[in-house]
């Protein structure tokens, strides 16, 4: 269970540009929930993910995982339980290292990075098998540097790498936004399979309303740092793209856009 309790977050505090993003923001995410998060730009979706991952500090409030306070835990330590895939496919992989080296790195997460050989030869076949399930032919390119791959291939690899070792939470930050529709579809299917297989608690920020409706068992809509819609279970299944679009338009009108 992941809890955000009374989160306050100000940007540029003490200046004329001071902006309050979160003022007493609360959110509970239960185990094995797959939460889709939608909302306009600046609504606080990515900031929320950054707060959960520890990429940005909070001004006030508490972040708890299974009852343990992790508010002051540095970002890298939190990653022990978290896998994260970014919007930019380049962020999840090392471009100048080969696919095999990238896979080896990801496989070693949680273990000591000591003076043993970086790639365990016995694991290579396993890596090949995992990659062949993608159907992208990556298993034939183990010694190719990742920088030469396409955005979709890199994102698929990033997805595999982020979920390779046992984690509890999967954080997806618009992870299909930079991809063409067909590849995006493929990545979403991959996401669904991995989440199901590994029983991960997932938070997915997306601008694609169809994905938000089709995938997951809970849907959040954010606006100016607040939750304006929170549907789960049956209510979520009944939702359609048009319902969310209506809500979106209403908010926009209220804002005078």
């Amino acid at each position, binding site marked *: 269970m992941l809890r955000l309790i009374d989160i306050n977050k100000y940007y540029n505090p003490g200046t004329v540009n001071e902006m309050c993003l979160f003022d007493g923001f609360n959110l509970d995410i239960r185990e094995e929930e797959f939460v889709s998060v939608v909302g306009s730009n600046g609504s606080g979706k990515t900031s929320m993910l950054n707060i959960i991952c520890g990429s940005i500090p909070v001004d006030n409030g508490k972040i708890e995982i299974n009852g343990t306070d992790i508010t002051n835990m*540095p*970002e*890298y*330590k*939190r*990653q*022990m339980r978290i*896998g*994260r895939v*970014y919007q930019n496919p*380049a*962020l*999840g*992989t*090392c*471009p*100048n*290292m080969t696919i095999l*080296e*990238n896979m*080896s*790195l*990801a496989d*070693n*997460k*949680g273990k*000591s*990075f*000591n*003076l*043993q*050989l*970086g*790639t365990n030869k016995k694991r290579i076949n396993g890596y090949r098998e995992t990659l062949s399930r993608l159907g992208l032919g990556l298993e034939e390119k183990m010694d190719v540097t990742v920088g030469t791959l396409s955005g979709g291939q890199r994102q698929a690899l990033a997805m595999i*790498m*982020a979920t390779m070792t046992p984690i509890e939470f999967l954080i997806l930050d618009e992870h299909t936004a930079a991809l063409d529709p067909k590849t995006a579809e493929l990545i979403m299917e991959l996401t669904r399979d991995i989440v199901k297989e590994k029983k991960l608690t997932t938070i997915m920020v997306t601008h694609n309303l169809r994905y938000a409706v089709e995938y997951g068992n809970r849907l959040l809509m954010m606006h100016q740092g607040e939750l304006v819609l929170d549907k789960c279970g049956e209510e979520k299944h009944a939702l359609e793209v048009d319902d969310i679009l209506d809500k979106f338009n209403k908010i926009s009108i209220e804002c005078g856009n």
Partner: protein
Amino acid sequence: MLTLIIGILEEGLAYGVLALGVYITYKILDFPDLSVDGTFPLGGAVTVALISMGLNPLIALLASFLIGAFAGMITGIIHVRFRVRDMLSGIIMMTGLYSVNLRIAGSANVAIFTKDSIFDNSFIDRVVPEGFRPYLVVTLLFVIVLIMKILLDVYLKTKSGYLLRAVGDNETVVTSLAKDKGTIKIIGLSIANGFVAMSGGIFVQRNGFFEISIGTGALVAGVASVIIGINLLGKVSFLKATTTVILGSILYKTCVQIAISFGLVSQDRKLITAILFLIILITSNGRKRRVKAHA
């Protein structure tokens, strides 16, 4: 002519270890580490101090590596833990080390001609035949550089080495692996400056004297070697990056020697160095731009 070539090879190889160190910071970590200008003479100072005390020259070499690594660690801590900009952390170390080096060496010029060195000791006198003497230094240097290169190659293939490469390639990945990228950078800077200081120790043992100014331009020489090596020879697929960097160091020393042979005196050395470096930077930029235009 042969003496000249051997001289260039010797100098290029002595700086080869430095080039390997700079390769770690400049190319792998993407960190412009100016502390190199201080750690190179630091290695030299430690070496002359220990050899003057009568210590084994090989141990002096190891000691210079360790103390250089310690200095590199401090650069890393200044940058990572106190959030001082990379360039400035190096400059702080470089400036501070100038005094430290003088303290360790005892004065700005220290000669150790009369003492044993790795190139000149009783063991070598006994074993090496007279006819081979002119090639002795270059052979020994070759062996040392080869050992250091292989050590670095092996390290870069370990888990820890993978992480070092990852931190220069994409810091986000290192954080995702639940590792502190700052610590990795500190480790990288340590290893790099260990190499650099050892190179200073080798240089001093070869020349038979220490001079406080040997560090001036050490980074430039290192970066130039790295750029020449990677840009000129990087396309040759059977050469590892570490090999090209060492060859780059020899090529660079050749360029400097050629410039000097055109009638410039050794006072002009640093100016030649600077102009050569500029030419290398400009031409390598041009290549990059052209590649981008095609992409």
